[in-house]
């Protein structure tokens, strides 16, 4: 039989306790590159609704991770990505769509100053509910964890979302919903395991 000459993806290894040296060096006190990549998602006045998302990554004992790194990726308010692979139009030039947060060194709380994402179609053409893609790495995480941040105040769109409606354990969906707080910000805590374990994705 012939061989299928595909290469194998490089095996993942943990980001370890010092991921911030490499990815957010200024956060660790190293004056490099004129600033940390992904620290700012808005490079000027942006279209749409500006929002703040805060959260903490918790381990299976409920302890906050203080050595994680969280990245988010999302479209602009019109549902367009600031990506070379975006073929449907041109995204807001003042919005990068990509954020990276090391979390607070003492509390572990991460913060993203971003905009409410517009809706993006699923491959079959149905619209997905507005969401943000998130990726979490840390010491003890052997391969980066993908999840999605949906919004609790998008109930109608969420109820029709092609992925949310596919989830067997509907009682776990709240783990994917950012909750609106009294101060107007959204809360999105991430639980790596335990009764409120976040739904993670194999995408």
């Amino acid at each position, binding site marked *: 039989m012939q061989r299928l000459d595909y290469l194998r*993806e490089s095996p993942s290894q943990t980001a370890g306790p*010092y991921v911030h040296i490499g990815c957010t060096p200024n956060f660790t006190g190293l004056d490099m590159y004129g600033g940390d*990549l992904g620290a700012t998602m808005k490079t000027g006045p942006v279209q749409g609704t500006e929002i703040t998302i805060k959260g903490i990554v918790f381990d299976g004992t409920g302890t906050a991770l203080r050595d994680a790194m969280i990245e988010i990726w999302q479209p602009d308010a019109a549902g367009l990505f600031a990506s070379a692979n975006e073929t449907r139009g041109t995204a807001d030039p003042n919005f990068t769509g990509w954020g990276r947060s090391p979390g607070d060194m003492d509390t572990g709380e991460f913060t993203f100053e971003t905009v409410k994402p517009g809706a993006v179609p699923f491959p079959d053409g149905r619209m997905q509910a507005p969401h943000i893609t998130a990726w979490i790495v840390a010491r*003890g995480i*052997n391969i980066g964890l993908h999840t999605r941040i949906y919004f609790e105040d998008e109930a109608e769109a969420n109820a029709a979302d092609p992925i949310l409606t596919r989830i067997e354990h509907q009682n776990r969906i709240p783990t994917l919903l950012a909750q609106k707080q009294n101060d107007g910000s959204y809360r999105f805590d991430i639980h*790596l395991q335990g009764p409120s*374990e976040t739904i993670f994705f194999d995408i």
Partner: protein
Amino acid sequence: MSNANIPPKPGGFIPRDRNWQPDALTPPYKTSVKRSPQSALLSFPTTLSEETSPVFGHNMLGALDNDLIHNFARSGESAIGPRIIVHGRVLDEHGRGVPGALLEFWQANAGGRYRHKKESYLAPLDPNFGGCGRTITAEDGSYEFATIQPGPYPWPNGMNDWRPAHIHFSIFGHGFAQRLITQMYFEGDPHIQRCPIVGILKTQEAIDALTAPLDMNRTVPMDSRAFKFDMVIRGRRQTYFENRKEGM
């Protein structure tokens, strides 16, 4: 219309091989025990959210970003340790070079010490070594950087666990689904077979995939040895027959 001479369109990303990639729960690496999800991952095909990613241009790079020997050193000085060049290519699963991939790397100094507030190993800091660098791959997916060979270091896991000398890599391709962090090890390091973090890899083939050989052909005589380290990120399915609406 015939398909002749029409290049195939990129489809979604090839699913990640979870039998090849390490599991989340690997008890010999103790920190994984309380940081590993216990529910099954939710599988679905990639969508635009995962098939797009930010663009990083070569113009964002500084002249010393890929020179860890000098990028933190005082003027006229350089980092202490064996001088090395790390080079290779970023490829996709089809074997094609990936241009424009952002690589960020970080490492301990020659004594095995990281420059970090929470790091307490007794080996000294090198005042001329910061420990991070970055580059963007060229048109053929190639990259290189100069650094010093990091030292092995002890870490709290078992009573006497040591990490092999290694360099951490973060790889950013052209789809968020490709996002990957890994580590590069050095040919011949006796700690590789003893390390619980290397031990999460399921096969010798996987360990080999992260072990960089000495590359004498790329070595600069009387200056630096070279190690070659290729990385593979997920590829996209290629198809003439993608059942998708236009523009997706």
